């Protein structure tokens, strides 16, 4: 059976990179005594798929991984077992079963929602919240995006599904829902960098405090987007 695990990453854990989070879960699943399925061959590994890698420094309330289990004693039991082997800053949010044939976590990702704050002392000039909204209102948002080979200009407007600001000044939070699929992944930093450039500033490396709020899959049909959190397609067991 395929199981989808949703977890949050916060505190000091934001300094643990994606590959190490994978290693952490491989070991955690063994500590939890979950009857996980392994691949065949001489060096078998756990069958495991992570949704979207999270950059070092970011926190998240909506990370996902899928595993394959050979037997289980229900979702509650599995969640409890996993909770018991976490560390501070890693929290299990849900454990759900996936129907046979569901695309794995990585292939399912369509979008991600982020909240973005400026670290103390890094915020742009007063009134930036309105200027950001005005920037977002433009029909075309051209940015330079670095690829492996060169730098290309792209219009990121179609990849930003929503953008809003709550709060003012040091409490201001930018909320954005952006494409996170393998074909059109947009990082929140790229959006903020484009805005700041318009505002006449460079984005400093440490200016932003970014949290991924959730990761979504698209269940819409005929080209109509219908985004739901990745665990919404799972069921209790």
């Amino acid at each position, binding site marked *: 059976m395929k199981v989808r695990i949703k977890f949050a990453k916060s505190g*000091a854990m934001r*300094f643990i990179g994606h590959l190490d989070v994978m290693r952490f879960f491989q070991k955690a699943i063994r*500590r939890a005594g979950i009857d996980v399925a392994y691949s065949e061959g001489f060096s078998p590994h756990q069958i495991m798929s992570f949704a979207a890698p999270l950059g070092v420094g970011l926190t998240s309330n909506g990370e996902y991984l899928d595993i394959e289990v050979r037997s289980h004693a229900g979702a509650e039991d599995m969640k409890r077992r996993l909770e018991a082997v976490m560390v501070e800053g890693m929290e299990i949010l849900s454990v759900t079963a996936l129907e046979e044939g569901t695309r794995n976590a990585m292939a399912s990702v369509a979008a991600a929602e982020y909240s973005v704050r400026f670290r103390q002392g890094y915020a742009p000039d007063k009134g930036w919240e309105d200027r950001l909204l005005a920037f977002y209102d433009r029909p075309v948002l051209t940015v330079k995006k670095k690829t492996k080979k060169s730098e290309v200009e792209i219009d990121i407007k179609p990849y930003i599904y929503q953008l809003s600001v709550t709060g003012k000044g040091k409490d201001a939070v930018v909320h954005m829902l952006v494409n996170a699929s393998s074909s059109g992944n947009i990082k929140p930093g790229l959006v903020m960098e484009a805005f700041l450039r318009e505002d006449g500033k460079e984005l400093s490396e440490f200016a932003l405090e970014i949290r991924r709020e959730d990761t979504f899959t698209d269940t819409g049909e005929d080209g109509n987007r219908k985004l739901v959190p990745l665990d919404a397609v799972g069921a209790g067991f």
Partner: protein
Amino acid sequence: MNKLALKDEILLRVEKPARYIGNEVNAVVKDRKLVDVRIAMCFPDVYEIGMSHLGIQILYDMFNRFEDVWCERVYSPWVDLDKIMREENIPLFGLESQEPVKNMDFLAITIQYEMCYTNILQILDLSHIPLRAREREGQGKGWDVPIVIGGGPCVYNPEPIAEFFDLFYIGEGETRYRELLDLYKECRRKGESRREFLRKAAELPGMYVPMFYQVEYKEDGTIKGMEPTEEGIPKTIRKEVEMNLSDTYYPKKPVVPFIKVTQDRVVLEIQRGCIRGCRFCQAGQIYRPVRERDVDMLKEYAVEMLKNTGHEEISLSSLSSSDYSGLPELIDFLIEECGERKINISLPSLRIDAFSLDVMNKVQDIKKSSLTFAPEAGSQRLRNVINKGLTEEDILKGAGLAFEGGWTRVKLYFMLGLPTETEEDIREIGALSNKIAAVFYETVPKDRRVNGRVQIVASTSFFIPKPFTPFQWAPMCTKDEFLEKAYLTRSAIKEQLNQKSIKYNWHEADISVLEGVLARGDRQIADVIERAYRKGCIYDAWSEYFHNDAWMEAFEECGVDPDFYTIRERYAEETFPWDFLDCGVKKDFLKREWEKALAENVSPNCRAYCQGCGANQFGGGVCFENRKGSNGKDKRAE
């Protein structure tokens, strides 16, 4: 969660911030208000190396089992963070509490190799602790900075670093720390001074407080004598040994790092000591007598440790695993236990024979693994000198069996610069490598050769005489001699028929020479180490950060001649800087072994025939195996 000691801006700027945040699985966090003694346990190298060290995991577990103690871990900040901490004056901190080391009661440093000495100074400096023990008394009672304790194999000659430590714990940590901590608590409760505590600590078994010993030198620079300067302090300090390894501290829940470290697996120490008595090997002498852990204990711990860590690999640890009497039973158990759970078993230090090949066949992917032989010397003559009881026949027979079993890669380890070594001995390295290759081509028919040919990698290190070995009297080679020997080895290999199947690597000579000075150095060396550190030397064990020029300048400026410690031939009756320590093995035994070495005579191993080394004074282990009779005396001893 404790607030992190480093700001986000720093953690995002340095390589691998996970080195500095703590919070790992099984890391111990206690309420600071509920403990009396706080210990920072340090391995003075980068996190990935330090986290791989078993000794610290054992002591960390032991200390944290004491309710009144909180022990945390500290490692050397990597060079990127080191620079930032100096620029911004950030004090070094414990990983668990993220609080400055300076605020703790003890800073305990394990000293595993000589090339970490400048890193010890880095740790002290970044902790804002004065480098010299004498400078730490400060104002009042002298409790401004932690007591700095050293332990580990290098303390069997602590003299080059003696001035940087308040205290050395000589021997195995399981036995005396509780007493030391109780003494500390009592002294603090009574309002006694740092000096008074150290004075009393120096009376405890196994404790060496360098400031209470005065060394006198002869005109030729050798040691005349070493005397305690205070009443009641012993002239000789005997090492501490845990005689019951089956009922003592061992971690069931070792800390699991987030990032990949060198030893990313469960480590099961199956025994301490080695029966073999190779004459170059310090570990083989200082960890005597050989003591085994009970196989049932090991089974229990293996299961528990795998469960509590989630590691996918378990490794047995010992100096010579094949000599562990319960090995077949333990391996059968592990294969059964681990197979189902897809856990790998790693078996280092196995002698290559039919048994070990059968076991490796079961637990390893033959295509990926290689065979390792450590003949250490090319010729049988020289192997007799060093008492390496591995014959050419053993090697060729083992290799033949392995090739039949499908192995195609062989690693060979040798040393250059061993006492009495001749050109002929060196040439034999090439000849032996060639013979092994020839065995492959004779054994494996053409159509069964996986990659067409066998891959043999011969590596040489340079021999460094170490204290408490029969070779402690031996002169060491110069750098140029070492390099000449390496070139000769290379050309001897090139002359071989199968030279295309043999790859040759050798170590750097500069580092070996310095290691030689530090290994057999005396208190004069402290100034040189500090001078080199002030010139920017840290991470000397990392060849990319080793600056030989800076070290040579430091020797020059301090007026210390490195040759005095390396190439000089010690005279038979010479007093060595480490002679005030008693590691169990007696100096006259070592001298007998030195003479036997020069006469090319071998000594049988401890199980075959007792050589009367002196380790039976500890009253157990291999010295008393299968002994009948009530006096416990070794009947085979002379």
